[in-house]
């Protein structure tokens, strides 16, 4: 929305719109005015970029923390300590929830999920305007359409370039991860228990074999609700947090100086509180991932 006057609504919309690139009848474009023509092939480029970038950052950090030459009497320092702390924390959780089951995929998966989501959530603590405005100005400088008609037509000003930073405030990312966990759950259920007892589990509970349709509906709701609640929980928490950051930022822009000062204080308080949510949600996603996979490994006696 290339309005000259910035209103509350346009400011919030600007922050909640993804940079979407997709295939329209005329070809590929990132024009925000053509989002409704894109149909299936629409990508949230900013979410994809940040999630892949943070995933690569995670791998690089953990790789670089590995000591070059391991000798018995060298004490771990700095980064290595931190990485070992993370790994031990995840390992403890896996041990306590998973117990005796032997599966070498679970712990690396849990570590990846935990650190990756933590990094993605931490992007919420970067001031709300900083990266979107920076990206907008860079895009305008590189490819903005000037008076001579050069450049990309839809970048008419830095404000017309949308950029949403926090990947976990995009339901596509959180639900994507949740459904990946869901697919793994189904895979291990069938692999460990066998297809027959997996189906039996879905159909013979809780009323026995004479009410199979009722059982199936009840169990199916339970079954489908797991990944959806897993993804929506992370999305909802981060979205609400981001929204409150935006609303506090609005206090700074559109009000008098005392309200602005109050907003500054509130920003600090909410950021401090948000650190708890950021870490807690990453932990919960990890713990539930482990718990769902542990459930898939349980063989129940009927």
């Amino acid at each position, binding site marked *: 929305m290339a309005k000259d006057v910035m209103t509350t609504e346009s400011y919030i919309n600007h922050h909640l719109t993804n940079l979407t690139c997709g295939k329209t009848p005329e070809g590929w474009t990132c024009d925000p005015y053509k989002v409704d023509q894109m149909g299936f092939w629409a990508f949230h480029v900013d979410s994809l970029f940040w999630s892949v970038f943070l995933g690569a950052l995670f791998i690089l950090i953990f790789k670089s923390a590995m000591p070059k030459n391991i000798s018995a009497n060298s004490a771990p320092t700095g980064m290595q300590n931190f990485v070992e702390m993370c790994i031990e924390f995840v390992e403890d959780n896996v041990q306590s929830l998973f117990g005796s089951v032997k599966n070498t995929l679970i712990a690396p998966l849990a570590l990846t999920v935990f650190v990756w989501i933590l990094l993605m959530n931490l992007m919420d603590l970067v001031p709300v305007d900083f990266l979107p405005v920076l990206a907008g100005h860079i895009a305008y400088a590189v490819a903005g359409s000037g008076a001579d008609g050069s450049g990309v037509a839809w970048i008419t000003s830095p404000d017309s370039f949308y950029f949403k930073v926090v990947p976990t405030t995009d339901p596509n990312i959180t639900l994507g991860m949740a459904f990946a966990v869901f697919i793994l759950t189904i895979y291990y259920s069938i692999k460990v228990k066998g297809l027959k007892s997996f189906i039996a589990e879905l159909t013979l509970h809780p009323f026995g074999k004479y009410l199979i349709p009722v059982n199936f509906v009840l169990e199916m709701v339970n079954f489908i609700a797991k990944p959806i609640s897993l993804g929506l929980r992370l999305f*909802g928490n981060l979205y609400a947090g981001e929204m409150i950051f935006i609303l506090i930022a609005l206090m700074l822009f559109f009000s008098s100086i005392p309200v602005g000062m109050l907003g500054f204080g509130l920003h600090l308080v909410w950021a401090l509180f948000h650190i708890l*949510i950021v870490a807690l949600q990453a932990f919960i996603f990890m713990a539930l991932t482990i718990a769902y996979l542990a459930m898939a490994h349980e063989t129940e006696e009927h």
Partner: protein
Amino acid sequence: MEGIEVLAAGITMGLSAIGAGIGVGVLGSKFIEGIARQPELAPFLQGRFFLMMGLTDAVPMIGVGLGMYMLFAL
């Protein structure tokens, strides 16, 4: 029409906050009770407490998110 949306968002946020308030209250009281009975279990219970609190806390947060969405983005 504008008023109805505001009302809907208010009800969404308010009711979910009530539910989670009761939930976290019960959870916290039981947590303190558990620590008072067996203080040596405190670290173990604390981890579980935060896990459950996050699970309970998520519902009103989703409510707040949806409410904000109704107010500003819809």
